């Protein structure tokens, strides 16, 4: 521990985000008398330029050599404040943050208890930072090749984008053809342009590019290494394995459609004229808008939200189905002007550019709209003798409050999107987290929408959540831009945190050797000592916790840092 270190403490109000519940001035007064604390300030916005300048000025004028910032989560602003320290010539690792927003002011109502907690967390950070040591960041080369996983619209877009910036791309697709789910659509909403046109252009550019190696019928089976230096193992359908050295991985694995047989009352799988939206797309593309036995349908019913916005199946909205259903209204009416089209929906979500306009145009085509209660989907049954249709769709209609039988020769189910059944496997291999519905989780929902918890692994398109083609394309290009930013820098900065062995303390018991999942620890039989290969170490600290001789230590998460932090959070608790 640095006994005579000089600590500056900064407590952020975050406008009213923190100040509303936590009394930052009081916290500042509580900690200002603690050993080694040279100054303590409460300030409106610590992450603002004037806030950061407060820190850099104090570092220079008050000769601070440690900084504590009590503010938002370190997951949000640790990089910001580390840069502030660097700007003042201080090693960035001499910073410690106390999370008094996400884990305090935003989740507690009682100002007294929240302020006490904020003071404890700040106290702990002050105790901890005294043990911090300046650490040097490491650098590594960046392999200028990218693995794009998934050959749908997102993967194709990213691959083409990267290739045009002169990057080598491996485009890996599990299926035998490129195009993904967009390749199964006929026209696209809201402008009714052809999905095939959109795709063909991308696919031919990908195929023509000398920098894109397309590997269809191939899947990713293993991913090792770290940002800039991954080794991806892919396996072809024939069972041939191949290792690809890549700097980044773009995961664009898309979605699968909801299995409509799960909602029994819709009759899918039981009545041949109940079909899914994808099956209708196929018939439209083939110019064969007819029933199962080849008749021209006079009545077409379109059922929205099949599997979506229903707590029994998927609670979320699949985003594209309302627009697609309105598009069907147009396509059916233009092919069969005499047909009656009925949209049986929950809410019409015609968001986004051109959406409301498509809704208006479809309404003008004299299609009928009937509303049903969320969680109470219509019931499909065969029509009776004397009815002039094949099926009857019974709707508990919300606006009229009546139970209505809608005639239908063809029932189209707008099946929602769901996470692919193999998303758990992809997540495990690539180190991405999934939400309860199975969608991949981005680093930050607003500020880092295509990054993941694993640096160098990005997500784009529907594997992250349901979205339309423009949003998938935007994400794919954003992910490509993230990769190109790394390429432009040429080298990769690796975190300075890793485990190390104190040779004098190591007893050579080899307990740590087996624990490391990255095989970063090796044993020198001659010296009878274990040692850590720092480039392979990812700093989880599992070996450190297991070392019986205390010979292993985790840089920036050392025992004495954490011990003092424990004492810090508890120091005042007995007095309250």
């Amino acid at each position: 521990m640095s006994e005579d270190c000089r600590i500056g403490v900064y407590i952020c109000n975050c406008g009213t985000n923190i100040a509303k519940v936590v009394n930052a001035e009081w916290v500042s007064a509580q900690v200002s008398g603690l050993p080694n604390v040279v100054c303590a300030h409460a300030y409106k916005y610590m992450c603002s330029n004037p806030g950061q300048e407060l820190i850099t000025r104090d570092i220079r004028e008050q000769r601070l050599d440690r900084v504590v910032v009590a503010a938002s989560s370190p997951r949000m602003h640790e990089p910001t404040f580390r840069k502030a320290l660097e700007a003042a010539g201080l090693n960035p690792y001499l910073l410690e943050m106390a999370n008094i927003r996400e884990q305090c002011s935003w989740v507690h109502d009682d100002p007294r208890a929240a302020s006490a907690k904020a003071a404890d967390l700040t106290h702990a950070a002050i105790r901890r930072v005294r043990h911090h040591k300046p650490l040097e960041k490491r650098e590594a080369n960046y392999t200028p090749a990218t693995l794009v996983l998934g050959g749908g619209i997102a993967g194709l877009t990213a691959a083409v984008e990267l290739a045009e910036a002169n990057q080598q791309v491996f485009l890996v697709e599990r299926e035998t053809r490129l195009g993904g789910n967009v390749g199964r659509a006929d026209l696209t909403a809201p402008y009714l342009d052809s999905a095939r046109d959109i795709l063909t252009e991308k696919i031919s550019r990908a195929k023509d590019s000398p920098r894109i190696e397309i590997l269809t019928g191939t899947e990713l089976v293993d991913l090792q290494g770290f940002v800039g230096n991954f080794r991806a193992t892919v396996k072809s359908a024939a069972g041939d394995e191949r290792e690809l050295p890549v700097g980044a991985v773009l995961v664009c694995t898309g979605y699968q459609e909801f299995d409509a047989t799960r909602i029994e009352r819709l009759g899918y799988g039981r009545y041949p004229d109940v079909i899914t939206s994808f099956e209708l797309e196929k018939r439209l593309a083939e110019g064969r808008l007819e029933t199962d036995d080849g008749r021209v349908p006079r009545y077409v019913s379109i059922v929205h939200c099949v599997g979506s916005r229903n707590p029994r199946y998927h609670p979320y909205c699949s985003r594209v189905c309302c627009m697609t259903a309105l598009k069907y209204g147009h396509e059916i009416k233009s092919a069969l002007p005499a047909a009656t089209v009925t949209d049986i929906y929950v809410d019409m979500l015609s968001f986004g550019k051109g959406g409301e306009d498509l809704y208006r145009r479809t309404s003008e085509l004299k299609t009928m709209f009937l509303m049903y209660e969320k969680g109470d989907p219509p019931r499909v049954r065969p029509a009776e003798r004397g009815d002039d249709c094949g099926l009857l769709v019974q709707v508990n209609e919300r606006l009229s409050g009546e139970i209505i039988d809608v005639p239908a020769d063809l029932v189209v189910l707008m099946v929602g999107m769901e996470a692919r059944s193999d998303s758990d496997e992809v997540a495990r291999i690539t180190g991405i987290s999934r939400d309860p519905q199975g969608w991949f989780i981005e680093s930050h929902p607003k500020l880092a929408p295509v990054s993941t918890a694993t640096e160098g692994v990005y997500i784009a398109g529907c594997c992250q959540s349901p979205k339309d083609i423009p949003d998938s394309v935007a994400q794919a290009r954003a992910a490509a831009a993230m990769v190109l930013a790394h390429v432009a820098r040429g080298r990769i900065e690796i975190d300075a945190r890793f485990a190390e062995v104190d040779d004098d303390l190591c007893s050579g018991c080899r307990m740590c050797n087996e624990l490391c999942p990255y095989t970063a620890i090796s044993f020198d039989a001659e010296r009878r000592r274990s040692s850590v290969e720092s480039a392979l170490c990812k700093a989880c600290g599992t070996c450190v916790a297991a070392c019986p001789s205390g010979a292993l230590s985790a840089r920036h998460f050392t025992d004495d840092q954490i011990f003092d932090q424990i004492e810090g959070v508890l120091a005042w608790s007995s007095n309250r």
Partner: protein
Amino acid sequence: MEFEPVIVGFLCNWCSYTGADLAGTARIKHAPNLRTIRVMCSGRVDPTFVLKAFAAGADGVLVCGCHPGDCHYIEGNYKAMRRFELLKRMVAGYGIDERRLRLEWVSASEGERFARLVDEMTADLRRLGPCELAPTLVPWQSDLGTLAGEAAAAEREVTHG
């Protein structure tokens, strides 16, 4: 005044700490009794951290990691789980009620689960009252200090002797 327990939480950076942050961004209110210490992985939680927390006056200790199969470091949480079983017995040996020590899995998307967990543990500890046995750990703490000193001296002798 009603007794308010203090819980020391060790949360892994990738799942549980992020889940706790999510409880914040979603404004899911919960009891203000937890004091969190961030570790990179639940596998980093040295049993002595837990004993230290009890010795320093914690009424409860909560260790949170990624769900089995979801560990950012592949299998650190399994290591934590194995260690935890032994630790639980050891803590019981010190006369500490086993409800005061919990290992739970909280993913990055489980803000709600995290909040309910903190509420639940706080309520349990309110019923159990203060962790009276902390004083019995105090001599243990000084013993450990002495032992560490002796061990270090012995090591110096062996290596430089």
